[in-house]
């Protein structure tokens, strides 16, 4: 039995209107990888924030190596030996990659920062994760996934004995995830304890030895070995009832129908060349690629946020010049669920009701632009119920929600909008198993009812579950297209081959 590093009993944390933690126990032992599971809003992030001194608990005890401790600030937690990757990315936008990684302990002599000495440890951490990034680049120029990797590198840099990872893989592709797992195993091998939060149970079973499951702020399974539990057990524990995955209605796509959205030899100022694809009514087209493949940028260019330099975009068969997302929405009926929910998806400091109904005010408005508050709330409440968003009231600020619930809010707004084409970028990042299932059903049903959907996801399983066709992109180019036969292994093989063909060509 190895040493217990961090232990907590009966932790309580209360926010106005919600008991986020309501008697949580947790024991972390050296050399283990511990899974922390629970539905969206169960209290995982709150627990991690209490353990790292961000929130002070309203009750309960905390011990470090057997000694009671009080962590009053993140700094104290770091000094104690607790490192963390929070669920939301927290980087200083104007600072370089290297400086962000070394922010906690900048290399300095006599109060002077040594910029040169930053590069080496930063590069070391990045290489450990297998990332090739210019350490001098400001992080504001990085994509979401790259920022996530920097965030992880930053945690590695602190060399803690307990490392808490709050959904580190949410926006990573399988490649990066695998490399991260290698790192985690190495750390555990060296005697550290890594806490791993994820909604991807396959990853959890592949990586973790012990598990704690939270439900409504209580631990329903505390620090038990994972081996004794099956996939379904865990889900049932999280959900609180037997979980059955319902099958989806069969759906066929009329391949002869006229495409709703068609790209023909499109090139963009962002560097895309010769992109062609088509989305037909009732069809889900997947756009798959590794981090930084340029998928999000492509969509943004089509929506007018970047310049299309060549080729043609056709909506309903006629050439379209889309100049802004607004025009896309109101003239062409195209909705875009962005991948970057914190910066572009939700309005953190605004009530949930406004976050959801922003796209429908035009429809609700009466004379003089008056929007009846009752109807507005009804629309929002309907979506909150349908998506199972966990809130204390429609007036609550979106920023106070758990990560997964924020994601739901950012999707809800587009479901409310009644669009004729939906572009969904990483829809289930950070969404729990059950809700992910619900999301999938929702997207499936939308397509079933004839809505064309362009789906961007780095989650290959999700792709295989949902898409009818998968377009594979790397390096701002389309590498090929595969028809989905819903067989995960076969599909992943074909896709990986498409991606790697290009690497061979290049080398």
């Amino acid at each position, binding site marked *: 039995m190895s040493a217990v590093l961090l232990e907590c009993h009966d932790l309580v944390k209360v926010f106005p209107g919600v008991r986020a933690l309501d008697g949580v126990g947790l024991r972390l032992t050296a050399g283990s990888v511990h899974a922390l599971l629970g539905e969206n809003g169960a209290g995982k992030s709150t627990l991690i924030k209490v353990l790292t001194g961000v929130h002070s608990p309203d009750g309960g005890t905390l011990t470090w190596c057997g000694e009671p401790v009080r962590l009053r600030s993140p700094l104290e937690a770091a000094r104690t030996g607790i490192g963390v990757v929070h669920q939301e990315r927290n980087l200083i936008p104007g600072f370089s990659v290297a400086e962000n990684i070394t922010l906690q302990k900048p290399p300095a002599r006599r109060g002077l920062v040594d910029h040169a000495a930053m590069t080496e440890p930063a590069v070391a951490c990045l290489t450990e994760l297998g990332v090739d990034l210019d350490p001098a680049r400001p992080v504001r120029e990085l994509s979401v996934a790259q920022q996530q990797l920097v965030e992880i590198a930053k945690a590695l840099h602190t060399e803690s004995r307990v490392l808490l990872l709050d959904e580190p893989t949410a926006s990573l592709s399988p490649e990066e995830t695998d490399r991260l797992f290698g790192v985690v195993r190495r750390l555990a091998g060296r005697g550290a304890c890594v806490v791993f939060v994820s909604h991807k149970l396959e990853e959890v079973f592949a990586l973790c030895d012990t598990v704690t499951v939270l439900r409504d702020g209580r631990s329903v399974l505390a620090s038990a070995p994972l081996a004794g539990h099956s996939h379904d057990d865990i889900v049932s524990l999280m959900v609180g*009832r037997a979980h059955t995955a319902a099958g989806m209605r069969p759906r066929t796509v009329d391949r002869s129908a006229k495409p709703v959205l068609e790209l023909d030899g499109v090139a963009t100022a962002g560097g895309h060349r010769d992109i062609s694809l088509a989305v037909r009514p009732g069809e889900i087209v997947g756009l798959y690629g590794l981090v930084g493949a340029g998928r999000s940028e492509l969509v943004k260019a089509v929506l007018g946020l970047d310049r299309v330099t060549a080729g043609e975009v056709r909506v309903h068969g006629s050439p379209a010049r889309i100049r802004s997302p607004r025009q896309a929405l109101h003239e062409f009926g195209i909705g875009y669920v962005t991948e970057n929910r914190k910066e572009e998806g939700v309005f953190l400091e605004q009530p949930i009701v406004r976050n959801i109904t*922003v796209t429908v005010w035009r429809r609700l408005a009466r004379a003089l632009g008056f929007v009846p508050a009752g109807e507005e709330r009804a629309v929002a409440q309907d979506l909150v119920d349908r998506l199972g968003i966990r809130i204390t*009231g429609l007036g609550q600020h979106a920023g106070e929600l758990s990560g997964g619930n924020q994601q739901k809010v950012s999707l809800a707004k587009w479901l409310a909008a009644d669009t004729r084409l939906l572009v969904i970028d990483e829809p289930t990042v950070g969404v729990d198993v059950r809700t992910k299932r619900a999301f999938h059903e929702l997207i499936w049903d939308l397509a079933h009812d004839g809505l064309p959907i362009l789906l961007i996801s780095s989650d290959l399983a999700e792709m295989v579950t949902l898409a009818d066709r998968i377009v594979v992109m790397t390096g701002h180019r389309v590498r090929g297209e595969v028809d989905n036969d819903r067989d995960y292994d076969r599909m992943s093989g074909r896709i990986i081959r498409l991606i790697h063909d290009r690497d061979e060509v290049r080398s």
Partner: protein
Amino acid sequence: MTTSVSPPDTVPKERTAGHRMPFWVNQRLGLLVLVIALSVLFGVVRPAFLDQRLVLFPLLRDVATLTVVALAQMAALSVGHMNLAVGRMAAFGAMFAGIGYDKLHLPMQAGLLLCLAAGAAIGAVTGWLIARTGVSSFVVTLATDFALLGLVSLMYSALTEDAAFTTRPAGVDALRSYSLADICAGPVCGSPAVPQLAQFTVLAMLGLGFLYGGTRVGRELLLTGANPAAAELSGIPTGRRVLLAHTLSGLLAALAGFMAAAGTGTFRASIGDDFMLPSFLGAVLGGTLLTGGVVSVLGTLLGTALVGVIRKGLDLLGVGLESLNIYLGCILLLALSADRIRTVVSYRKVVRST
């Protein structure tokens, strides 16, 4: 959109039900309490404070004007911008009213309309520049301020003898000195403490209250302020909203300019010279965020009133210039700290009751 997602039954009902915070955690209420408490305090120490004609009437007239100024700033703040040219836009608008009365011999209402139109126009030009170029509103309105400062002086020098338009059409004097006491329904007359000039403030407040509280455009203004990137991606025409916010700001500034001119006598270049700080103070005290996305119309009135009451009280106590500003600053800080403590205590109470 017919979808069948079963409502999750694990969400306890009491969690989703009801409001987040009880009403008494409200910042506006704190301000109201402060304003009333200070008024009572001054009223007890100096009974003359409650003199309707000599103290309350001028106080309210002042508050009425400055509230409109603060509302003008609030309109810009709602989209996360600033309007450093509020004062000069007020002067610009008032100048057109003056020209209307002095040169064109317009009746009062027509001059007022001209004034508002001029204010809205200059606000629109500013807003258009900001929206089109994406340059910080601070820089653009600062430049507008300079341009107007020069233009207004030049126009007054060119058009007038004493740097002021002294013609006043019928009705302006009434606006300045009439109160509700001059409006009678049979034998019952209104209070002599409430100036008729306040009708403009009430109108502006109602209009903005409806805009921000009830309409689509108002909500879109706020979301544009809260997060421009997300707003653009949600299909809000952020450029047009920025333009609108500045147009409104210019319009309200011009209204305030008219009120200030009507309140003191003539339409002159120096109107609005001292508008900038009160405009921010009233809005920010009232709970409007400098970063955009949150406004409070009523709070703006209360914030302005708080400062007005403190100043008036000190005047009544006969505090000289050596101490006036020192007391003013200290009382403001103390009052706000007290309110802050109230907020913290009430927040704790809510947490404990959860």
